[in-house]
């Protein structure tokens, strides 16, 4: 999916988890596309999501809001959402907002997928 400067790749793992890999900036401009993509995934039955942030260069409050929205949608459907491999800027934003308590970042995809 290509929307403005955000590209979102999807990968179904061998288990029930879908890895969502946005690339670029997750901000006010691209957050609606991300939100919509996650909602579609959950509605189509992919309720366990790992958002791989390795290729996300920058997140703002709108981008964070979209991830939180995805977390809520996934949980409401009986699943969950985890985030993995945030860069320093994303870590900083999670710290500033204390959202690292809600969205605990995993250092690797393997860790995020373990026991999910």
């Amino acid at each position, binding site marked *: 999916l290509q929307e*403005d*400067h955000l590209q979102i790749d999807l990968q179904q793992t061998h288990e029930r988890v879908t890895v969502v890999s946005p690339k670029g*900036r997750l*901000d*006010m*401009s691209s957050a609606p596309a991300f939100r919509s993509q996650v909602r579609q995934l959950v509605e189509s039955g992919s309720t366990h999501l790992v958002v791989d942030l390795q290729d996300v260069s*920058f997140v*703002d*409050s*709108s981008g*964070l*809001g*979209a991830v*939180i*929205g995805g*977390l*809520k949608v996934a949980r409401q459907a009986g699943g969950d959402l985890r985030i993995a491999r945030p860069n*320093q*800027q994303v870590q*900083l*934003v999670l710290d*500033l*907002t*204390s*959202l690292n*308590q*809600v969205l605990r970042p995993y250092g690797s995809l393997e860790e995020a997928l373990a026991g999910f």
Partner: protein
Amino acid sequence: MEASKKRSPVSEQSGVEHIVECTVSANHLDAVHEALALFWRGQGTSPEERWRLLFEVAVTEIAANIIEHARPPVVRFRLRAVSGRVDAEFTDKGGGWDGPPEPAYFLDDLAERGRGLAMAMKAVDEVAYERVGKVNHWRLVKLA
């Protein structure tokens, strides 16, 4: 960023102060990131990463807030470095802000909106807002 097709919205002056000025005219923040990158490149020394990122977070949040809430046709802003401190001044002719910035706090862990201003206030040393006539002025300061 539409404006760049005709004339770059970002300009730079160096001297005792280092100044980058920018105009954002569309619902995209590309020009803000471009201005920040130019701003850091133009300085003799590279600031500590976390300090730099905190200032960037505040600048982008305020810019996004103005675009989303004040909805002006354009936002003009200036980034300035002097004596190790950095500041940002934004002006726009959009709708007025209802009041002074509120204390930085977050009401709900799972809220999907409303974190931007609080993030900016935590990231820098000063966030000030003033409306003069029909013009909004935002000012951010991050001390060395």
